């Protein structure tokens, strides 16, 4: 069923063929023919953003909360360059996106035409793959291939640059099922010999630990299910990176909490002390490993990852398993059961006793106050008041992000969207809109810092226009809190440009956008204020004035190993040496 049509129509047709329901975009001269086609149909919803960066983060939020690829449409030149931060963010966090950009007509490429930019050149290092389509005949095939590449293997963002004349010209549309198979078919099944080796190690390990990451979530809900089954059956403890929260439930018995630079004491010490580390879809990021030389010195390490280049990149492992987390977990579980469900019971009992001692330290303890709202307290209350609800959380980047990861509990995958790899301030607000677009009836909360939130606050206009009742829960410390914390610990308390001055009145700002503003500064009022926010049927900007100089603990200072963690203010004197200070 190949049909002749214009390139612009092909774009819309191909998106429909791919099952796309919504795209996030912003028009301009070089994409007018596509916008004309969008106007003439009703199957695909278009969300008009206020800035292209917002469009990409919205698509990320949409993708991470649904497991489907997010789709973005931007114009040439500035439209495309505005998308670059979002593309890089998606690349580092392995989020499947298909970004379509307009380009000047083919005969003008290279002439410095109006709104011409070398979009494929600029986006090459921040996409998994990109294409400049110069021939309408190749357009539909390229779009279908783009969806394949974005979603198969390790997911990631792809971009298709479409010159305006290619959009106007007529060509033959190739439907999705007629596309010839591409050679890009990453392997999903793990090597059974390696899996067997791992299972053997699991049977005898005295101090085993699951260290899981975003790969479990990317692999799909079945992978999380298998992981839960495996953890329950073996009784091994489990920790996760920032990106993997929710794959194992926070209420689960074996849950140690998040690990890493601001991870929990018990999780980090378990990483340091384990004798078998089973990395499932995580990538030994530097926020996790701390000083490489002293990283988990006594463990055998297994690493399951769909991307072979992640294996042995920073940490040498003993059992490398290249494959999709879901497939590998299935084989592992089957094999382990078939061999008699063996574990080292005695060792495990001792290991848990040790872990429970670490847990008793109660590392998230903080000094609460009757007068000011402590950010940790605000999140504890938010957690308590929203726990059983159909809830999705996004965050910005900074201290509030780390506190959210520590104090909110996630029972399911795809419920937690945060910028982990790139650490992009300005991610959370648009991401929350993208999530809400996908889940119109859910409670979607962006836990924000005031500074990050301002970076993409224009998207409140989008939230209003498309009636997405997103809740912006701003922990306002009037500081670039995370920067301030580092300056306190590393730069002799010289607070160079790390405070937020001339902040807007957030309640008035909410009114200006036409939504609801709430301000709260007294811990006694907090519960009622949070309930007001939840009950309000539209978008809310919640200005939660919190303690200004609170530090985020635990903290593993840069360049330190896991067992040299700071637990509170008393530990912080002169801890970070000159060597650590050069690290970020």
């Amino acid at each position: 069923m190949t049909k002749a049509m214009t390139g612009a129509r092909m774009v819309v047709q191909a998106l429909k063929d791919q099952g796309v329901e919504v795209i996030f975009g912003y028009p301009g001269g070089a994409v007018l023919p596509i916008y004309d086609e969008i106007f003439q149909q009703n199957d695909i919803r278009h969300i008009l953003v206020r800035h292209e960066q917002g469009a990409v983060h919205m698509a990320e939020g949409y993708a991470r909360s649904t497991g489907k690829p997010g789709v973005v449409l931007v114009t040439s030149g500035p439209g495309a360059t505005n998308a670059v931060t979002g593309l890089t963010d998606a690349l580092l966090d392995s989020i499947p996106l298909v970004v379509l950009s307009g380009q000047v007509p083919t005969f003008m490429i290279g002439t410095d035409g109006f709104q011409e930019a070398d979009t494929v050149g600029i986006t090459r290092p921040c996409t998994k793959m990109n294409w400049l389509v110069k021939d309408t005949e190749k357009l539909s095939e390229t779009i279908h291939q783009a969806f394949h590449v974005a979603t198969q293997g390790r997911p990631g963002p792809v971009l298709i640059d479409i010159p305006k004349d290619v959009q106007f010209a007529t060509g033959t549309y190739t439907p999705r099922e007629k596309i010839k198979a591409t050679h890009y078919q990453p392997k999903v099944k793990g090597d059974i010999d390696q899996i067997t080796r791992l299972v053997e190690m699991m049977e005898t390990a005295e101090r085993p630990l699951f260290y899981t990451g975003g790969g479990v979530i990317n692999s799909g809900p079945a992978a999380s299910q298998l992981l839960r089954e495996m953890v329950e059956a073996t009784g091994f403890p489990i920790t996760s990176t920032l990106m993997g929260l929710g794959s194992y439930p926070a209420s689960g018995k074996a849950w140690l909490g998040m690990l890493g630079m601001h991870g929990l004491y018990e999780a980090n010490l378990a990483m340091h002390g384990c004798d078998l580390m089973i990395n499932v879809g995580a990538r030994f990021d530097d926020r996790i490993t701390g000083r490489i030389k002293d990283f988990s010195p006594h463990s055998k390490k297994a690493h399951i990852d769909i991307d072979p280049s992640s294996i042995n990149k920073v940490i040498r492992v003993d059992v490398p398993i290249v494959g999709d987390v879901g497939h590998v977990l299935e084989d592992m579980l089957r094999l382990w059961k078939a061999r008699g469900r063996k574990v080292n019971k005695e060792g495990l009992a001792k290991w848990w006793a040790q872990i429970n001692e670490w847990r008793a330290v109660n590392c998230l303890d903080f000094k609460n106050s009757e007068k000011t709202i402590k950010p940790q307290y605000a999140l504890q209350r938010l957690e308590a008041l929203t726990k059983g609800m159909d809830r999705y959380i996004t965050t910005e980047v900074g201290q509030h992000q780390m506190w959210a990861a520590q104090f909110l509990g996630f029972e399911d995958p795809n419920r937690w969207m945060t910028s982990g790899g790139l650490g992009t301030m300005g991610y959370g607000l648009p991401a929350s809109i993208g999530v809400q677009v996908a889940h119109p009836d859910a409670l979607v909360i962006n836990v924000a810092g005031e500074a990050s939130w301002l970076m993409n606050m224009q998207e409140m206009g989008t939230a209003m226009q498309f009636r997405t009742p997103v809740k912006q829960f701003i922990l306002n410390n009037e500081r670039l809190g995370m920067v301030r914390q580092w300056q306190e610990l590393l730069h002799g308390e010289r607070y160079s440009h790390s405070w937020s001055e001339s902040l807007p009145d957030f309640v008035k700002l909410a009114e200006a956008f036409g939504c609801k503003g709430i301000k709260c500064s007294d811990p006694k009022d907090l519960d009622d204020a949070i309930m007001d926010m939840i009950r309000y049927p539209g978008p809310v900007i919640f200005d939660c004035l919190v303690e200004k100089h609170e530090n985020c603990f635990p903290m593993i200072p840069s360049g330190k190993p896991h067992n040299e963690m700071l637990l509170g203010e008393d530990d912080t004197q002169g801890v970070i040496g000159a060597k650590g200070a050069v690290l970020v």
Partner: protein
Amino acid sequence: MSPLNIKKGSSSHSAYDLRDPNSPLEETHTLAVLVANESGVLARVIGLFSGRGYNIDSLTVAEVDHEGHRSRITIVTRGTPAVIEQIKAQLARMVPVHDVHDLTAEGPAVQRELALFKVAGKGESRIEALRLAEIFRANVVDSTLESFVFEITGTPEKIDAFGDLMRPLGLREMARTGVAALSRGA
């Protein structure tokens, strides 16, 4: 096929290899990378090297299969064993890359490079240059009364050696193609 998209048994330096990964010793490896012959692919491969701080000592590229739209990129690179492993894994996972071969690790390979040398001089040194060219089986492809252009093919080491000899004899300019390489045997 191994997960690295390298033929089974073809590489003793795969991700499963347990040589001392922390060996500080740098090795030189010749990689043959088969890619889709599409615009931007070479830029993507080169961008990988510059973006991640890997070395390129030599790089050649040309279409080798017109029908199948395949180009072969031959890269000579340097790094510790761990870095070489990373380079191969990073190349292999790129969408337009069909195959990566580590010719250095896969057993004996032939390596050839073509170079042109312009040597100017008179009298004794001119005769000496011609004599050495004969020993090295270099061809004279251009000559004036005061200069020669020699064409020479061989391993990079042979070309280096020829260049060293020509330098005192009036070497003016040199152009090298970079290495082309194939594994020996069928």
